[in-house]
């Protein structure tokens, strides 16, 4: 008896070692597929004389940025370093944090778009909280490298929007790798992808003749799922310790849960309720976003961001007041009814209230390559509307600090502050332009892209040798 219990305990200890959940973290967010990402920083580097947008809302002219051991060490005027530090004269260049896209389907809907790789929507049931986008990611998607050339150093890859609850999203560092685990952002929380509106009701009611067929069916579907999750949490509450043996309770696991058979779907929803998994909701219309905010209160979860939100401008004050980000396009509209009210100033209006969190996102392998240009469109549209001028140091936060905040990685990246990951882009000039090009991109202090010396061969295995004749 004792030996059996000991073995069980050892097994649990081993599991917790290999999956490394945060200390005390719920088993709902244990990770059996852990990150193997390794930073490989270059030697210390001083970027000099640049226009620096820090991502904290500051612009520093003629400033230096010092990278060492994969971290930002200092940002400021005329930084003094010893002769061993490599220098880049960035006179006339602009330097920003590495860009972050909170909404990508790279790897899960890769290029080329063949059926065999169409892995973004588990369209077999309206609630598939059990699936994880990371298990669909094809690391050889050429889109990753194209995004890197656009200055994107991190991204969240999400399941698609066919389902009410599509599954877990994963945050990746944008480095070439053979496995997705080697891209997986260490310590980043998962996202939970949910979807409002037309897509789920079209796919299920319209396409398969099962619920949901309507928006009211959608909401009933979310509620049923979260009722199950709340019940699951209750059943998994740690029971009072019975103090049967010297080794502690004979019930529950190392994280204090009570055990019982795991349900992958409910694990994810429970993780979302407990705040360990960030809730990202595809939602276009203002009224539906408001419904989803009520839903979040009904079940006690927090919405990290509404994605696409073409009507977010109608609800901008409430989003800011509730601390919910709006992850938005600059100009997509009209391709379906719920996108009919899209306006070019959406991001500017969402950005306007105090404590707002406006984000430029892509949802597109083309858009992710030029998030900076998307922001430039918004800045121009705001000027056209006679809104107060949006400065570059403000706009850069839409794809750096604010995006990091939505993903829960703001302590590690998203700004050029001492101690942060050295995820940095050197641009050929003001990034808010059609003509802006990322010249050098650093991830954790390693130069992973250099426009002046393109790699001799493509980074993606798929593209290798395709040009041979």
């Amino acid at each position, binding site marked *: 008896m004792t030996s059996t219990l000991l073995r069980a305990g050892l097994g649990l200890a081993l599991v917790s070692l290999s999956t490394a959940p945060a200390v005390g973290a719920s088993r709902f967010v244990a990770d059996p597929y852990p990150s193997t990402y390794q930073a490989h920083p270059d030697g210390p580097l001083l970027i000099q004389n640049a226009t620096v947008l820090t991502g904290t809302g500051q612009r520093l002219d003629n400033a230096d940025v010092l990278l060492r051991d994969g971290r930002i060490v200092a940002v400021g005027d005329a930084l003094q370093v010893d002769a061993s530090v490599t220098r880049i004269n960035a006179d006339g260049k602009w330097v920003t944090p590495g860009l972050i896209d909170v909404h990508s389907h790279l790897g899960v809907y890769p290029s080329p778009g063949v059926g065999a790789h169409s892995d973004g929507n588990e369209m077999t049931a309206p609630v598939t909280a059990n699936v994880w986008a990371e298990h669909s990611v094809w690391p050889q998607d050429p889109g990753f490298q194209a995004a890197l050339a656009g200055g994107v150093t991190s991204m969240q890859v999400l399941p698609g929007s066919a389902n009410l609850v599509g599954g877990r999203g994963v945050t990746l560092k944008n480095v070439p790798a053979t496995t997705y685990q080697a891209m997986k952002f260490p310590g980043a929380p998962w996202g939970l992808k949910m979807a409002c509106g037309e897509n789920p009701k079209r796919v299920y009611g319209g396409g398969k003749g099962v619920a949901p067929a309507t928006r009211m069916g959608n909401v009933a579907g979310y509620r049923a799922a979260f009722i199950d999750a709340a019940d699951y949490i209750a059943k998994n509450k740690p029971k009072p310790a019975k103090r049967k043996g010297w080794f502690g309770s004979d019930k529950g696991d190392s994280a204090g849960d009570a055990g019982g058979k795991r349900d992958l779907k409910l694990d994810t929803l429970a993780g979302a309720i407990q705040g360990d998994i960030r809730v990202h909701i595809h939602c276009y219309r203002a009224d539906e976003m408001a419904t989803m905010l009520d839903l979040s209160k009904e079940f006690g979860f927090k919405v990290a961001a509404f994605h696409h939100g073409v009507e977010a401008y109608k609800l901008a004050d409430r989003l800011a007041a509730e601390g919910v980000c709006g992850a938005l396009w600059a100009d997509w509209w009209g391709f379906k009814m719920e996108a009919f009210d899209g*306006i070019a100033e959406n991001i500017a209006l969402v950005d306007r209230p105090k404590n707002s969190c406006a984000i430029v996102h892509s949802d597109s392998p083309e858009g992710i390559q030029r998030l900076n240009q998307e922001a430039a469109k918004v800045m121009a549209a705001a000027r056209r*509307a006679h809104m107060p001028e949006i400065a570059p140091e403000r706009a850069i936060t839409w794809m750096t600090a604010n995006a990091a905040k939505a993903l829960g990685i703001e302590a590690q990246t998203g700004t050029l502050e001492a101690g942060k990951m050295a995820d940095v882009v050197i641009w050929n000039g003001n990034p808010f332009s059609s003509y802006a090009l990322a010249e050098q991109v650093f991830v954790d202090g390693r130069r992973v892209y250099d426009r002046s010396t393109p790699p001799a061969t493509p980074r993606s295995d798929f593209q290798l040798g395709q040009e041979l004749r």
Partner: protein
Amino acid sequence: MGMLNKRRRAWPGATLVALLVMTTAASAQDLLVRGATVATASARGNVEDADVLVQGGIIRAVGRGLSAPAGVPVVEAKGRMLTPALFGGITEIGIEEVSGESSTVDSALKIGEQPLRPEFDVTLAYNPASVLIPVARLDGIGFTALGAATGGGFVAGQGGVVRFDGSADPIGPRALFLRLGAAASELTGQSRAAQWMLLQQMVDEARGQVAADSPHALLTPAGRRTLARYLSGQGRIVVEVDRAADIRQLLRWAAREKVKIAVAGGAEAWQLAPELAAAKVPVFVDALGNLPTTFDQIGATLENAARLQRAGVPVAFAQRDDASHNARKMRQLAGNAVANGLPWADGLAGLTRVPAEVLGVADQIGSIEPGKRADLVLWEGDPLDVAHYAEQVWLGGRAMPMRSRQTELRDRYLQRNAQP
């Protein structure tokens, strides 16, 4: 409310409206734009500090020190750039309203029996009251090629050029749209080879080499007549095709049948740049396409436009996906082509003169030259840079309202605070 009025600039909105009201005696289609950087999109290139005189909706003069005839309103450009109104691409603007709602979409024919109907003409469905038009126009777009979209057959049907001045009818000749390669393979028995087989049979029918009552006829009598027109060189056949091998076959076919073609998309067109140039075949480049989105686009590159231009191929722009609602992205295509090696003047030409020439309307629009329609845009900055916007659009010399359903929505919520 306050923000709009307080921050409103003297120009262009307020002043221009006032001028127009005061000068009711002169035609609403008269105008002198003074002191502009006139990007003519013609052999004259950009002319600094130049004036453009418009009378009766037509450009009468381009030069320095022009004087305004009595009653003709003057717009001071103060050095800002004046361009021809831009090309919106090959779109469904006015023939689709909401892409996902089939009741609002008229761009594709899906007839099961005899799906190959070149006589199908989408311009007949054109709705000049579409809300897409002011949205595109606000960004400096003055005309588009209405394209027939492939529905039932790889020969999609005809379209034509429409101007966004509220007029109901197309200008210039019709164009015939067809699609080749993987994207049309489902419509041609699962093989791109069958596209040439079917095309050849249609050509034979149109040339009268197949009996009109043949049980194997692909075309209706109207279809034969329509195709015969294109085979005789009237109107251009715009072919959406990406793979270099397919473009090579297309060039051979066009040379053999002596038809005027243009390539649209053309992801791998740069690989055949000398051949395209020699055959004088223009390409509508999707200048943001650099990924192998399909196996037909393995060679996609952002340098496509630049490489084609260097070889002497006329380069215009067109985008895929939601080209209609996103027509305002056309400037971004041109700007990115310039960022990747295309000369700026060719970037502008690809949005103005070249598409007008390709579509057979360059005698009317596409450049700022005397005798052309006064379809003009005054810009707040570089028109190829998304960081800038169109301040005023004139079509046929008439100032277009710089408003759309979207600016109405914007202004409503710009002035509101929290919404219950």
